[in-house]
């Protein structure tokens, strides 16, 4: 456009920006400011807020439950980044060979990502159920009664059971990586064949380096979402047994429910800081140009 704007245009630009800016201030700027300010206050939501300095932070950092929550979130993130995503890459590479019915499998693997996290959690509660669950029934059938367990109720098994219920649902990242594989020109493989590379060599020396960017993006996405996960833990164990499955967001929620708004927001500030540090840090570490990847997606028309 020309650099000179008419008065009419200027008014239009401003009018068109007002709704977005209003919503953004109300739901992003004000809340973040609010969280930061009240994290230094003792406040129950009704009475007067009282400035207490960094007392809220020292309280939560001294709270074993909070430390447990951070640890759990980190485990959740690491299993996402280093088990979940590599499996997704493996399946994407397998399906990229277009075995019989690969479109069907691609559709099926995506199912758990399309039904909501809550519905999936309820489904797995049915499977882990102590009396009626499918898992215990299978163990009974194959004569392993000794392994039958109250999966979500026992201290040792609750957290692993939570991780296992989603870790094989690789559809989402698989689709992203598969789209990346489909952009690799066929000539590369033909050239390698002439040089005598066989199937596995082609996978390792051509496919893998070329999808590295997509894999690192997926790892970042998976790890960052692991830091703020809430729904399935809330539904399946609500942090129990004995806070073994406590998570950061659940901790914030519990403080809110107990009208300890200052503590809730101190925990929220920690969550925001960890979240932003993770995105920026992982981004630096993997040196990914997000914009570039996004543009590539458009040019290939998304997932084909």
């Amino acid at each position, binding site marked *: *456009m020309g650099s000179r*704007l008419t008065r009419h*245009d200027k*008014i*239009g*630009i*401003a009018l*068109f*920006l007002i709704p*977005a800016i209003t*919503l*953004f201030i109300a*739901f*992003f700027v004000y*809340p*973040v400011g*609010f*969280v930061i300010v009240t994290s230094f206050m003792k406040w129950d939501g009704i009475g007067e807020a009282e400035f207490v300095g960094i007392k809220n932070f020292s309280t939560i950092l001294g709270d074993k439950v909070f430390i447990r929550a951070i640890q759990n979130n980190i485990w959740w993130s690491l299993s996402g980044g280093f088990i979940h995503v590599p499996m997704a890459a493996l399946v994407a590479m*397998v399906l990229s*060979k277009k*075995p019989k019915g690969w479109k069907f*499998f691609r*559709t*099926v*693997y995506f*199912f758990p990502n*399309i*039904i909501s996290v*809550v*519905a999936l959690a*309820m*489904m797995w509660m*049915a499977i882990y159920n102590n009396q*009626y669950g*499918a898992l215990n*029934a299978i163990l009974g059938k194959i004569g392993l009664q000794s392994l039958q367990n109250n999966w979500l109720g026992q201290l040792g098994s609750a957290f692993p059971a939570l991780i296992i219920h989603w870790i094989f*649902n690789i*559809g*989402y990242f698989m*689709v*992203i990586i598969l789209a990346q594989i489909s952009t690799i020109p066929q000539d590369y493989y033909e050239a390698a064949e002439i040089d005598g590379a066989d199937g596995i060599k082609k996978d390792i020396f051509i496919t893998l380096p070329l999808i590295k960017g997509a894999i690192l*993006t997926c790892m970042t*996405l998976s790890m960052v979402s692991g*830091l*703020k996960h809430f*729904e399935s833990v809330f*539904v399946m164990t609500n942090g129990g047994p004995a806070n073994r499955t406590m998570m950061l*967001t659940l901790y*914030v*929620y519990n403080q*809110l429910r107990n009208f300890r*708004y200052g503590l*809730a*927001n101190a925990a929220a*500030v920690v*969550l*925001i800081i960890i*979240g932003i540090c993770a995105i920026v840090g992982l981004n630096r570490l993997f040196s990914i140009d*997000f914009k570039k990847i996004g543009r590539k997606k458009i040019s290939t028309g*998304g997932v084909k």
Partner: protein
Amino acid sequence: MITKADTVAIPLKTERRKEITPVDTLKKFFMWFVIIWFTIFTLMPMIWLVVSSFKTNTELVSSPFSLPTKWQFQNYINAFQVSGIGKMLLNSLIISIIATVLNMMVASMASFSLSRFQFKMRELVFGTIIIGILIPINALMVPYFTLINKLGIYDKHVGLILTYAAIGLPISTYIIRGFMSGLPVELEEAGIIDGCNFYDRFFKIILPLSRTGIVTAATFQFLFSWNEFIYAMLLTSSQNVRTIQVGIRYFSNQFTTDYTSMYAAIVISIVPSILGYILFQEQIISGLTQGAVKG
């Protein structure tokens, strides 16, 4: 002209292709092992849940993996009667649709201003909105709760609609603005010559041409609104406004020991998602992946 070398080389190559080495067999075996393992893990729980939802509770305990002796729909009748699932699906639909429309209107208007004109604050405004993508929304529970209460829209549809429309704003603006920036300038110059003012150019030229970007953003926004849980729970209390996601969580309280009816209710709540996915598969996959890769 065919040389001797060619005639020799061609059969050699095909011969090598046909020969199945133990390594090939092993590779094939591994490939199918991977495919089948993930299929079992994904599909079996769903199939088991659906089959179980047609059984009686006694049958579920006595023979958990057999097909029901009699396929009976009593569980589904119970599910509808006990849970009020119809009303919850309707609430989810209303809230998701209006939140998506509102979000698209606000985001595409802002994107138009931020993509088709040069002005001083442009990149600052856009950059600030984009930072919103980085903020973990779950951390803002207390301020959203107090804000919605202050506005007097706690436990009302409009409270969730406004919240969802606002939360999705940074991502939608990012996607739509990216799309609008790519449209050629000549389009508007032609429009100006034809006497189109600011609003004509938006509604008649840019908006229709940005359809692809808007549909992608809308898909992402709709799925987010449909599946959102924390704020649906935190910002409502009565059954009148309850969305399906919050409703699912209450199934275990509502049905207590009537497990098979609860399974039926879970199946009902999953069906719309699966149907929508099968109908709009390509759209949903590209909407979800693009939205997330950018977010």
